[in-house]
């Protein structure tokens, strides 16, 4: 049997950073709903609240995700390609670089020197240490991108003409997606925020900064989401008791996600004055195109579940749903994730719409939407992947399958109780990013029942988050051992023996992305150098 000890060590190191910081950020989330609801006067503090929201957002969005995805990538590459890590020293250097950056950024966040929220909001200025730390986190992750590309490349050299295993194909697609999408925020931080926060340049153009951030801001959610999709395509069908409905459609979906998700960030800028409406409309068309691979994914995954249900004796139009192996935590998480993706996706169509977005832009609707898609659909799959992979990495059996399933159910219920009221509050006009609602009028009074629901949802989620840590620690500390440490990836219904080169590599697609990026972001960025603009001086919070 192949030994996966090198990828297991890298994977576990990354996973532990991801889940330890996640637990901390989840507890901050509980504090935030309590503060925001305004029920406990002792908790009221704008300094603490905005510091907490900044830390919660940065940890969940940049730290949990990046480390989880890197750990998952190393493990997927090692176990599917059956190869050792390419240049192990470099891989660990990348991990340490990301970790150093995280510690620097965290030190500033937890001392109130970076309360500028997840999207940085210049001309509010944070400590330069925060911006430099965030940059190191991203640069460390670029080393992981190189690792993934090199491992796939070397495997293809050793196996000419053979299809790259689907999980590695999707992981490499995600690595490239992350590289292209992180260029936007990297340019903002390197050319604007760091020199400006150090006083080397006096002012920065906020319009340009927001445009560059928008480049990253949408595709980053697909970077987070792809590991969840990969679990649904490559693990769930087999664990459910069946086979993957179509390997080729999965590859087509990953390529579409890679190409379509980067150049569409302007739906975050629909109500920003510095971009013209024609560009916003074009980006809306692009935004809707990303629904295509998501709808393909929904079809293939649900069809695979039906294959499983029927192979296990399910009959009739819906009888197969009952016979799916729901006892497996990853299958259960997949079902719950798809439900949340469906509700969150419908909400997303509203904020993605050029003409409907103004009803909800910058309201609590948006917070409800992205918690349902990210914290719901995506992170629930991270939990399930951790429960599936941990025993294989450590050789110790999962602490308790029952506890794991209870944790997933609580996460699902808590997320619905939290986010459905947020959608309603958004329609009732509540702005996002507020700590109290001191308006004292009828509109503000109509929010109160939903704020109570929000606190209940937040409390359920905090319990569920603590359970994740307990289950992972409990698994890691067990003395029993598991024999079967091979990853069992799902077989497609129709075996794939030969693939067209376009579905087995990314050279052509990378060129397509560059052309599409220049077409959609070229002039909107160039315009700032052609107009007579006025930069903004730094402001403290």
């Amino acid at each position: 049997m192949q030994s996966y000890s090198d990828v297991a060590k890298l994977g576990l190191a990354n996973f532990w950073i991801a889940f330890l910081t996640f637990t901390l950020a989840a507890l901050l989330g509980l504090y935030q709903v309590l503060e925001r609801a305004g029920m406990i006067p002792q908790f009221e503090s704008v300094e603490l609240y905005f510091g907490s929201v900044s830390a919660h957002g940065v940890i969940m969005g940049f730290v949990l995700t990046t480390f989880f995805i890197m750990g998952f990538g190393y493990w997927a590459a090692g176990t599917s390609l059956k190869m050792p890590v390419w240049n192990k020293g470099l891989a660990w250097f990348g991990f340490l670089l990301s970790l150093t950056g995280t510690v620097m950024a965290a030190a500033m966040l937890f001392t109130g020197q970076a309360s500028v929220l997840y999207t940085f909001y210049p001309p509010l200025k944070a400590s330069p240490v925060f911006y430099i730390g965030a940059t190191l986190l991203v640069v460390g992750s670029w080393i992981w991108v190189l690792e993934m590309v090199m491992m796939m490349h070397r495997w293809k050299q050793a196996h000419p003409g053979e299809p790259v295993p689907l999980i590695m194909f999707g992981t490499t697609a995600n690595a490239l997606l992350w590289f292209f999408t992180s260029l936007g925020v990297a340019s903002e931080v390197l050319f604007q925020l760091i020199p400006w926060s150090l006083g080397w340049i006096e002012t920065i153009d906020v319009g340009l900064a927001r445009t560059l951030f928008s480049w990253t801001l949408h595709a980053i959610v697909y970077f987070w989401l792809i590991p969840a999709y990969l679990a649904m395509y490559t693990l769930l069908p087999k664990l459910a008791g069946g086979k993957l409905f179509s390997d080729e459609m999965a590859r087509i979906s990953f390529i579409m996600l890679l190409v379509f998700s980067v150049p569409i960030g302007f739906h975050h800028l629909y109500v920003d004055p510095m971009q013209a409406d024609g560009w916003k409309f074009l980006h809306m068309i692009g935004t809707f195109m990303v629904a295509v691979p998501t709808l393909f994914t929904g079809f293939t995954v649900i069809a695979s579940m039906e294959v499983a249900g029927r192979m296990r004796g399910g009959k009739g139009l819906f009888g197969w749903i009952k016979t799916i192996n729901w006892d497996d935590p990853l299958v259960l998480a997949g079902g719950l994730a798809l439900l949340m993706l469906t509700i969150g996706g419908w909400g997303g169509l509203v904020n993605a719409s050029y003409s409907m977005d103004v009803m909800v832009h910058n309201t609590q609707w948006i917070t409800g939407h992205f918690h349902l898609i990210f914290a719901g659909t995506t992170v629930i799959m991270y939990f399930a992947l951790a429960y599936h992979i941990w025993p294989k990495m450590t050789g110790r059996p999962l602490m308790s399958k029952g506890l794991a399933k209870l944790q997933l159910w609580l996460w699902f219920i808590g997320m619905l109780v939290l986010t459905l009221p947020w959608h309603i509050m958004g329609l009732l006009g509540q702005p996002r990013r507020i700590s109290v609602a001191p308006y004292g009028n009828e509109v503000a009074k109509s929010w109160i029942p939903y704020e109570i629901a929000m606190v209940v949802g937040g409390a359920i989620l905090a319990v569920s988050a603590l359970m994740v840590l307990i289950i992972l620690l409990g698994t890691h500390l067990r003395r029993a051992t598991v024999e079967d440490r091979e990853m069992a990836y799902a077989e497609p219904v129709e075996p794939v023996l030969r693939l067209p080169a376009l579905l087995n590599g990314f050279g052509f697609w990378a060129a397509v992305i560059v052309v599409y990026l220049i077409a959609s972001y070229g002039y909107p960025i160039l315009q700032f150098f052609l107009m007579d603009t006025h930069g903004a001086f730094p402001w403290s919070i």
Partner: protein
Amino acid sequence: MHIDATEKKWIYLTFLMTFAGIGVLAAYAIKDNIYPPSNVETIDSAALHLSDEFNEDAIGVRREKDGSIRVTMVAARYGFFPQGITVPVDTPVKIRIASADVLHGIHTVDTNFNTMVVPGYVSEVNTTFKKTGTFPMFCNEYCGLGHDFMWARLTVVPKEKFKL
């Protein structure tokens, strides 16, 4: 390459739904002349008090020659100036806002008045308020520790009661 027959139908349906969605949104945007605030107009936020349009005497509500209403506002930590505006119902209103300092945003519930206010740029919204009453206008973008307390009032009155 193998693509199942049912899957092919789903592929066609997916593209049909996506293009239909884009088509409906485009048709409404053209028919109702909907466009988000996108005027791409620069201004020196540090010198609003010296500008013709946003100095202290110029801001507020006024009636244009064609009968429409023009509202000029300044957003600055932590308030909108003027803090209260009154406009007539069912009348075209052009609202222009500039920031004197950092990022802000403003929206009013149940209307399509919603815009970011970005330092260095002027935001312009063209709308018609269709309900009378007094509504809060919230700052909807984090602008510093006093952000929660930044809001203004919009009063929409019947046409005959509107006076300048």
